[in-house]
């Protein structure tokens, strides 16, 4: 079965070729169906290969397992080494004296990620074919083709990142994903909010990336290589890890700690952890399949994967408690905000933040396998939920028109169970998985995290248990308000789009009216919501199967399945019925409470949220996301502009003024020269004086005439200086 390993490099190449073909070959790019077909076929081929790799790896391993450790006392003790691996590489670019190679590495976590990413991406590609069908602004067929080319490029980058065998290639793919994310969030760039969101996402993640880049630079500086692996000269080499663990950096931290913190900044940006979380909810301005693919299943999980991939460095760094803190805080904080949101996609976005927090927290407490497990199951059920919400929005547009502010507001929905049954049932599966109900996927993976927390970090366990309660609560609220009760969309809430503040005056842009009118024409605007076409519901069903069953990869409790632990070579954790019991009780409590509160509420779209009155100011704070957007607006962004303005002031008022003064000074010297001329050479010809005046005027106007004199003067001075130097010293 080495066939799959040898040809695995084609996995990212297929979607990359699809991107190139759609972009560069007009016959393909001109037609949306052809370009979608090319992208889907390419991805299907990748999916087959990726699953082939997984099956081959599971049945016969990835290669000899090189035991870590050996040299150095105590080195490699308890450090993760990812089991056996299969690697291939070729020369790409020399950096200075060392040569960097481009290559791929297949091991257990990589194979799992490849299988997940290809499958999720394939489902989302197919879904997009239906979802994007009505996007015809600005009346160019090419725009939809471009959509497919972008998500194909994104998938290629994500797969490259997963397979990369060294950190630089990892980073390159990481950045290209960021670029695709930017392009796709801003896909409807003529909407100001979309463009602003794209810009915000790009810049916010880039702040994290700067840290990551510096971490890579420092790591390269220390190791002389960026290659993953435990061999000599590779970054997980036990002797090397031991060295950076002992070597003092600055402020009493070891070099390993500094590298780990810098790399973790990349995670904070990409996986939208507190305090760089602000971009992800806004990223929902992008088309919904994009939210599902990039901002739920794959790219945002890349930050988690980064820590998982470089875990040995984190293990020796001593910063894992910090990682755990950031993750736990984000899990709890985002879940609180999700309770008070009304936009169906934003609720899911905050839920994603919270779940990513779970994964990061798991990594922080040493539960590497649990984090990876939750990453995989979460990708399936969150992609499912997002696509489900896309289906809901698509159906809602028939009732309220093509206006995101109306079509995405859960207060305008209600009773959709009747109108879109397939969407409802698949959504329900995703919901149960996310809430952590036995035996859906989320139950198993979340239980793993809670179990490890219970065993090693009680504080984290308490916080995550509260977050689980909130998860069940806000998801039940969403399900009840969206799918139960009466349909309220015929008298929708008057849309009040949030006012975005832009620093640039003159940048305020409204949606082109033609676009709205066009959308109205397509979507009648006042019918009933309808079920989506099969091309959209089919991917929902596929994902629902995985959301329901993928947890059985590691179902320790009752079933005694430890396949995932065995596959990745990590020791399985003893299942604990009590932890699972508490988790289930908490989830049930959240569901029950939300059902009791929300089932009787929302008779009309204009009703207040039932929690608003009892919680008072707390609810308002949650509604406003605790004000972090405003805070950053007031501090970081203002500060930056102020800095720029101050720098410009220095340039114009001080440096330039000084320059101009020098010019005036030269002019003044010219005047004195002229006076000397005038007095001492008084008898000289008038012509001379007049020409000097002319030169003076020339200086005043063009101020260039003196330059040559100046040079000549300095030249003479230089010669004198040099002569003095040579002969006198």
């Amino acid at each position, binding site marked *: 079965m080495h066939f799959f390993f040898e040809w695995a490099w084609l996995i990212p190449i297929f979607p990359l070729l699809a991107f190139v073909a759609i972009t560069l070959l007009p016959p393909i790019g001109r037609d949306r169906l052809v370009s979608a077909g090319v992208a889907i076929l390419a991805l299907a081929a990748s999916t087959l290969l990726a699953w082939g790799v997984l099956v081959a790896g599971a049945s016969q391993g990835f290669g000899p397992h090189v035991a870590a450790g050996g040299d150095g006392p105590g080195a490699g003790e308890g450090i993760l080494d990812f089991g056996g691996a299969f690697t291939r590489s070729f*020369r*790409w*670019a*020399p*950096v*200075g*004296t060392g040569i960097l190679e481009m290559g791929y590495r297949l091991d257990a976590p990589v194979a799992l990620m490849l299988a997940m990413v290809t499958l999720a991406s394939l489902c989302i590609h197919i879904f997009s074919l239906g979802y994007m069908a009505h996007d015809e602004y600005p009346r160019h067929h090419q725009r939809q083709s471009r959509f497919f080319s972008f998500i194909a490029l994104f998938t290629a980058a994500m797969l490259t990142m997963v397979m990369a065998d060294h950190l*630089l290639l990892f*980073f*390159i*793919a990481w*950045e*290209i994903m960021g*670029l695709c994310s930017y392009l796709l969030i801003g896909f409807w*760039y*003529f909407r100001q909010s979309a*463009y602003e969101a794209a*810009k915000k996402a*790009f*810049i916010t993640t*880039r702040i994290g990336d*700067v840290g990551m*880049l*510096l971490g890579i*630079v*420092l790591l*390269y*500086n220390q190791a002389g290589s960026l290659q993953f692996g435990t061999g000599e000269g590779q970054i997980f080499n036990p002797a090397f890890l031991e060295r950076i663990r002992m070597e003092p950096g600055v402020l009493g931290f070891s070099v390993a700690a500094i590298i780990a913190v810098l790399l973790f900044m990349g995670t904070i940006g990409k996986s939208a952890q507190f305090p760089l979380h602000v971009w992800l909810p806004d990223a929902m301005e992008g088309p919904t399949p994009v939210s599902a693919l990039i901002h739920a299943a794959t790219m945002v999980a890349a930050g988690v994967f980064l820590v998982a991939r470089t875990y040995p460095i984190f293990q020796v760094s001593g910063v894992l408690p910090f990682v755990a803190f950031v993750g736990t805080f984000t899990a709890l904080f985002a879940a609180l905000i999700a309770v008070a949101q009304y936009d169906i996609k934003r609720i899911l976005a905050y839920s994603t933040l919270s779940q990513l927090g779970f994964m990061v927290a798991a990594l922080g407490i040493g539960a590497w396998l649990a984090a990876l497990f939750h990453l995989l199951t979460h990708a399936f059920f969150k992609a499912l939920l997002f696509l489900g919400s896309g289906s809901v929005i698509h159906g809602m547009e028939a009732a309220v028109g093509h206006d995101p502010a109306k079509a995405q507001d859960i207060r305008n929905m209600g009773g959709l169970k009747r109108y879109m049954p397939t969407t409802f049932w698949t959504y329900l599966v995703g919901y149960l998985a996310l809430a952590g109900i036995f035996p859906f996927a989320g139950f198993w993976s979340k239980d793993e995290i809670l179990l490890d927390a219970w065993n090693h970090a009680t504080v984290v366990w308490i916080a995550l248990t509260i977050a689980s309660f909130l998860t069940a609560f806000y998801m039940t609220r969403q399900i009840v308000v969206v799918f139960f009760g009466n349909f309220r969309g015929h008298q929708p809430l008057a849309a009040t789009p949030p006012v975005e503040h832009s620093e*640039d005056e*003159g*940048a305020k*842009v*409204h949606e082109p009216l033609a676009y709205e009118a066009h959308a109205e024409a397509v979507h009648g605007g006042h019918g009933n919501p309808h079920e989506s076409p099969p091309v959209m519901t089919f991917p929902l069903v596929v994902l629902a199967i995985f959301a329901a069953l993928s947890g059985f990869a590691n179902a320790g409790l009752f079933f005694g399945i430890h396949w995932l632990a065995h596959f990745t070579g990590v020791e399985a954790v003893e299942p604990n019925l009590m932890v699972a019991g508490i988790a289930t009780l908490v989830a049930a409590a959240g569901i029950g409470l939300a059902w009791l509160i929300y089932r009787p509420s929302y008779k009309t779209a204009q009703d207040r949220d039932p929690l608003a009155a009892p919680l008072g100011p707390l609810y308002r704070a949650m509604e406003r996301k605790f004000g972090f957007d405003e805070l950053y607006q007031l501090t970081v962004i203002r500060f*930056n*502009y102020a*800095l*720029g303005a101050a*720098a*410009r002031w220095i*340039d114009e008022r001080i*440096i*330039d003024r000084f*320059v101009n003064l020098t*010019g005036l000074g030269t002019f003044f010297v010219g005047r004195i020269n002229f006076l000397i001329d005038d007095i001492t050479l008084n008898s000289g010809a008038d012509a001379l004086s007049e020409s000097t005046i002319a030169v003076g005027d020339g200086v005043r106007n*063009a*101020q*260039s005439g003196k*330059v*040559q004199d*100046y*040079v000549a003067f*300095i*030249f003479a*001075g*230089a*010669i004198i*200086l*040099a002569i003095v*130097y*040579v002969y006198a010293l």
Partner: protein
Amino acid sequence: MYIEALARNLPDGVPWLSLTWLITLAAALVIMVLPRQKKEAMRWVATIASGLSLLITLLLYFSYNLNDPGYRGLGLQFVERLPWMPQLGISYLVGADGINLPMLILTGFIIFTGSLISWNIEERTKEYFVLLLLLVTGVYGVFMALDLFLFFVFYELAVLPMYLLIGVWGSTRKEYGAMKLTLYLMAGSAAVIIAMVAVYFGSGMRTFDMVELALFGRFTREFQALFFLPMFLGFAVLAGMFPFHTWSPTGHVAAPTAVSMLHAGVLMKLGSYGALRAAMWLMPEGAQLWLPWIAIITVANVVYGATIAMVQRDFKFVIGYSSVSHMGLVVMALATMNTIGLSGAVLQMFAHGIMTGLFFAVVGRMVYDRTHTRQFPELGGLAKVMPFAAVLFVIGGLSSMGMPGFAGFIAEFNIFIGVWERYPLIAIIAALSIPITAAYVLRVTYLVFFGEVKDPHFLDLPPLTGREKFAGAMLAAILILVGVYPTIMTDMAADGVTEIVARLQQAAQGLALR
């Protein structure tokens, strides 16, 4: 590959290097004698001549041999040597290695695309092209000269036409811009002359031959400490080093498009190239003494320039200040004095040259010449009107912000590795410029290309001509090519700087022994 086969067997006995500037000079002379009304002929002559010179630089690239020890073991190839004024120790000596060959190729690309972009010049077409070709003759000459005197002659030839080109064909306070630029460059060259003359006498060899001086010149430590600084700073003024940078944005803004391209794309590189070739090569101990201080100043360039770029209201000023920021990275990379940093500097010079050429082609020719404004409040929505220009600008912008897959990333990554090796703290502070760069590029992209079309007249703007599209696409393609397959440039750059790095390290050891 036919071109490669041809290049491998480049006939001997042809002065290939000199042909580049001889061709552009000849074209200038031809245009001079053409009748005034034959504008179309002048354009063709200029374009064909610059295309030929580009072709020669590319031939030289393909026939460059990485394993050749080169002229006197210094890695210099294609060397030509003629006595010129032997009694003064002046000779015509030119050669190319991994440092200046990328610069020659860069010059070729910029003048070729610049000629294509200048097709619309109607006012005094003859003088314009003559001056443009003279300017580029000087630039080619500077990049290949290995004799200090020759270097300086070409240097002056490059600076003077610039003054006239901006003063006559420029816009927006053109006289002021031209004056300021010339004043600064002259002040810079004055400082260089001092050091140059000092080197001539101080070596005791009475020669301007840089190879001789590098091999046998015995400059005392005190001499180097005294004269390294004027030489380096004199050139650094041209590279836009803080606080001698204000000429550059003003000059960029005032200059006509092709001149902005040459100016930001090539002329600023003359400064950093001179600083590397003349100052650091000849006086390595001086470099070891002074460059750590210079490195601190370049932080201002990098971060300060980027912040100013963010608050501009004029499209060209943004690009101008972004050049200040990027060229600051080059000088910072020079200050690392290690292989990886210096090759990063060479790569950044190349990448920034192509990128900024592309920027000015878009901003000056495609946007300004059509809309007649560069003020952000008046622009907007141009992506609908000229999508091709928007794509070109975004490609340049991505390279500018160091996005992997574009040439800028390869350069910046090398630079950051190199800087970290020597000045970790500076690397951290300089890295702040990365998100700021992303911020201003995206801001400008939005304000100019996206959003609503501000002015209904924009919908009737003349479409881009095929020549303009070709020029822009050519530059964009190079950015992507070098970004995706950097080996084509990195090998050469790393090979080129080894000689200088060896001398710098030797000097460091000498200083340490003391």
